[in-house]
């Protein structure tokens, strides 16, 4: 239960704990420390007892555990769940299968723990290589492809303008592709002109 100093690992004394949002010195290492304690520290873990969970005659039973009493239905699939199987999450009751499905299919935002930012990749491909000119011959079409292919893919959770980067990447890459086409036509024209000029009369 002891709250320990994050510097030396020693238990913090009462005056540090009672400081009420002020910095006090750790009694052992002297580091000035501010501690915010919340009631969750004292809440015991809610583990249901065997008696609470045993199903009686006429009781609805858990979908996953036939011998256990159901306490709530899953808010997604409607299966009956015992206290062990029910998970309180986002203000609803979930069964383990729905949580797994939500996580793998990325349907529930609050279950995602990683995202690839395709819009940032597309924008980076459309901008940085252009500074070196020649790599943009490859990267501009790649940026355009990414922008179109991943148009519907969600971007960062904590970003508001979700499509702005993709739109910018498309514009930059189209401009670069256009310039490459113009450059190609110009080179072909110059080449043909040079060939014609060198033809012996």
């Amino acid at each position, binding site marked *: 239960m002891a*709250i320990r100093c994050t510097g030396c690992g020693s*238990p913090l004394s009462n005056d540090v704990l009672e400081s009420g949002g002020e910095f006090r010195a750790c009694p052992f290492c002297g580091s000035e420390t501010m501690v*915010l304690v919340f009631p969750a520290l004292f809440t015991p873990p809610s583990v249901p007892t065997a008696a609470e969970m045993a199903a009686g005659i006429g009781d609805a039973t858990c979908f996953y555990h036939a011998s256990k009493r159901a306490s709530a239905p899953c808010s997604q699939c409607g299966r009956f769940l015992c206290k062990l199987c029910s998970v309180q999450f986002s203000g609803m009751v979930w069964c383990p299968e729905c949580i797994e499905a939500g996580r793998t299919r990325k349907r529930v935002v609050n279950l995602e723990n990683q995202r*690839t930012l395709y819009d940032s990749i597309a924008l980076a491909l459309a901008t940085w290589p252009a500074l070196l000119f020649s790599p943009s011959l490859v990267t501009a079409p790649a940026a355009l492809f990414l922008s179109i292919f991943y148009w519907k893919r969600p971007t960062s959770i904590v970003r508001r303008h979700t499509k702005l980067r993709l739109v910018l990447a498309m514009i930059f890459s189209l401009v670069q592709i256009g310039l490459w086409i113009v450059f190609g036509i110009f080179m072909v024209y110059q080449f043909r002109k040079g060939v014609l000029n060198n033809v012996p009369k």
Partner: protein
Amino acid sequence: MSPNEFPYRKLPGDFRGFFRRNTLWLGADHLLQVDSTRFSETYKRFYLRDIQTIIIRKTPRFVLPYYWLVLAVVAALIGLLFKLDSRRILFWPATIVLAAEAVYLYAASMFQSCTCHLFTRVSKVELRSLFRLRPARQFADLIAPRIAGVQGGMPEGWVERTTTLAELFTAADRNPDAPVDVLPTGTFSWLTVFVFVFVLIDAGLTWLQLRNPSSRSFSTPNVINMIALAVCATLAIVRLSRQKGSQALRALVLGGLIVVAAVTYGVVLFQSIAQQLHPETVRDYLSYPLGICEIAGDIAVAIPGLVLAFRQPQSPPKPTSLFDTGAPPA
């Protein structure tokens, strides 16, 4: 909440490294830590109902966000480029920017830095975005009422329930008679003495320079002395801040450092302004008074500092074996 409403609010604290960025966001019922590389993001959620403790600890730490590094590199490049130029228009401004940045980073790293840890029943996580005191305090002020609103009030006698006396005694080397609420007493250290000796050497070098202003033979020893002073003073401040009854000595070490740094910075600033205003005839209006002030400040800090440093008690000899009690043999 409508579907179009943005579900997160940015919290204070933002670490921007070259390849990583760490931020904290507040959702409806949870705290979201976002660890992002340029092209992907990793999320950690801490539900407000699960947060047990938040501990912020002041500690000297050097963290370099990329924008400071970019500024330093740009200023150094400009300085180098214009040093080669005959007019040196931007050499001194670039030098001042570099010096100011170095002073800021030093001050922020030594006196305004912290670590912030968040504890739940099953995890202890460092919140990397909170590495400076000001955002950490803002974060604490903002988040504490929210968590209290979700979890309710603290139970009766919670302080006694967190740390028992037995645990405190165990931590104090299992000695029940040992006082548990005091810092280790300050002891004599040559490091502190060296700091004040370097301050006195600085005063001597400044005096020699004032006697012979045209000579440049003192600049290299001066720079070496200043670097040695900076290193020793940094280590001494960290050491003294972890000892009992060393506040005055720590203040004097800090004072010596500030005197030397302020005068050096003042001279550089003055020379750059003078060069901008009168590029042809740069006259030293302030070098002499600044030098006198530096010598006076150095002596005012070093003499009491040396007296205090030598009055610190000697540290007790360390026992050579487990059975050595420190008593003389019979």
